[in-house]
């Protein structure tokens, strides 16, 4: 500690104890009579010094941590407390100042700040890397999505163009069938990336699209259709096979249930029942017999895909017409 004389110009040191001399490396005769600014050096924070000086001039207590210099030029962190000592007249006669070497504490703080800074830098760098990786992945996903959609459009165009060229009704019907199947897959892909969740697929929205398209494209204004669609999500990987099955059943109904301009109605429903969901297609047409039921390639497709989807497929007489039901386990259910 030191005591300075506030009555003398420039506030010189009046007394310094041994601890002060040990801390600073000066001899007593070197410090008495001097202002203690000799402890300051190039790296001492000037703003902090100014704050201490202002407090001294105002006659107030002040505490600060400043970098000070020993006689040999080495530095230490000084936790400084300065208090004015007032005489009987109330004026400041002396200042009492205590010093504490807090270099170790400062060093620990600095080390902590450094490692924190390093860590933050590391996190920032890693975040940039991950953000870039995500951007690349998203761009790639968009690119692939774009190509899949364009290629589906190209396949449709090829089938349509060939269909315009051929005249054989059997070939036309076969091409039309393939076109509808490609169309069903296309409807899936149009829907697949519309939501932000690319892993799930809303079957009801898809069925609404598909029914509008298949029935619209058939040009059968005399067939009314009604929908009762509960929202059911399936894994995106099941979307295309499911779409193909529904397309096959719907196309078959349109082809066979209402011959000779017979009008009627088709109902399509989706309901969730416990751990399964049910797709139902009911018509009030001419009903099933060996010639109008699902047959040939269409039947094969439905059977194979139901096997793949672990779905149960059943066609029953609805008198009048036909009722087709597909029961599909919800993901995770056995």
């Amino acid at each position, binding site marked *: 500690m030191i005591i300075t004389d506030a009555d003398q110009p420039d506030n010189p040191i009046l007394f310094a104890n041994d601890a002060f001399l040990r801390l600073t490396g000066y001899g007593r005769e070197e410090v008495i009579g001097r202002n203690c600014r000799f402890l300051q050096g190039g790296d001492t924070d000037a703003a902090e010094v100014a704050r201490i000086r202002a407090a001294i001039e105002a006659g107030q207590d002040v505490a600060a941590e400043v970098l000070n210099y020993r006689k040999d030029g080495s530095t230490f962190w000084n936790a400084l407390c300065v208090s004015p000592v007032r005489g009987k007249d109330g004026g400041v006669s002396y200042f009492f100042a205590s010093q504490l070497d807090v270099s170790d504490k400062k060093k620990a703080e600095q080390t902590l700040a450094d490692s924190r800074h390093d860590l933050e830098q590391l996190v920032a760098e890693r975040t940039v890397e991950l953000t870039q990786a995500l951007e690349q992945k998203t761009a790639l996903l*968009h690119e692939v999505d774009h190509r899949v959609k364009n290629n589906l*459009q190209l396949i*449709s*165009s090829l089938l349509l*163009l060939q269909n315009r060229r051929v005249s054989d009704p059997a070939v036309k019907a076969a091409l039309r069938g393939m076109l509808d199947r490609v169309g069903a897959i296309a409807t899936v892909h149009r829907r697949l990336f519309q939501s932000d969740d690319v892993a799930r697929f809303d079957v009801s929205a898809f069925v609404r699209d598909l029914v509008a*398209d298949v029935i619209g*494209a058939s040009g059968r204004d005399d067939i009314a259709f009604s929908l009762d669609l509960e929202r059911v999500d399936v894994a995106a990987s099941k979307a295309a096979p499911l779409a193909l099955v529904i397309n096959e059943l719907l196309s078959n109904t349109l082809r066979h249930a209402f011959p000779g301009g017979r009008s009627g109605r088709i109902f399509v429903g989706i309901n969730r029942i416990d751990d399964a969901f049910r797709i139902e297609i009911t018509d009030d047409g001419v009903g099933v017999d060996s010639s109008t039921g699902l047959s040939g390639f269409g039947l094969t497709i439905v059977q194979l895909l139901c096997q793949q989807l672990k779905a149960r497929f059943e066609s029953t007489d609805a008198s009048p017409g036909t009722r087709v039901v597909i029961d599909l386990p919800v993901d995770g259910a056995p």
Partner: protein
Amino acid sequence: MNDQPLGVLIIEDEVLLATELEFLLEEAGCCSVGHAMSSHEAVTLARDLKPDLALIDVHLCDGPTGVDVARRIHDDCGAVALFMTANVKRLPEDFAGACGVIGKPYSSHGVKIALGYLSVCMRQGQAPGPPPIALTLSPQYLALWGLLDMPRAG
């Protein structure tokens, strides 16, 4: 506008798609006036042929220039632009002045219905009802054709 069929310019770099689309346009009661594969060709043809409607793919043979083409056709040529793209999400919010978008892969039926609907909108300056499923209209044209108060079709 009179009852003449809509004159349509196809801007699409896939020739097979463009060819099939031409057939489709005729079936939908429109008249195909030309086909462009690049942005330069598109703007030139739009100026020379003065189509009523331009169907624009975003990716043309000189890159993703379709958005710019739509803006120029809308601003300079007075035609109504309509995007036909697989990149619906990448379109700017204002649709670059285009009236809307038909997402690829589209179906023949979907395009026919959409073109029929657009023909009515363009002739009457007013939509006959909510747009069909295949067609998404831009905010500007929703307002222009009096659809802001009308509910969107499910």
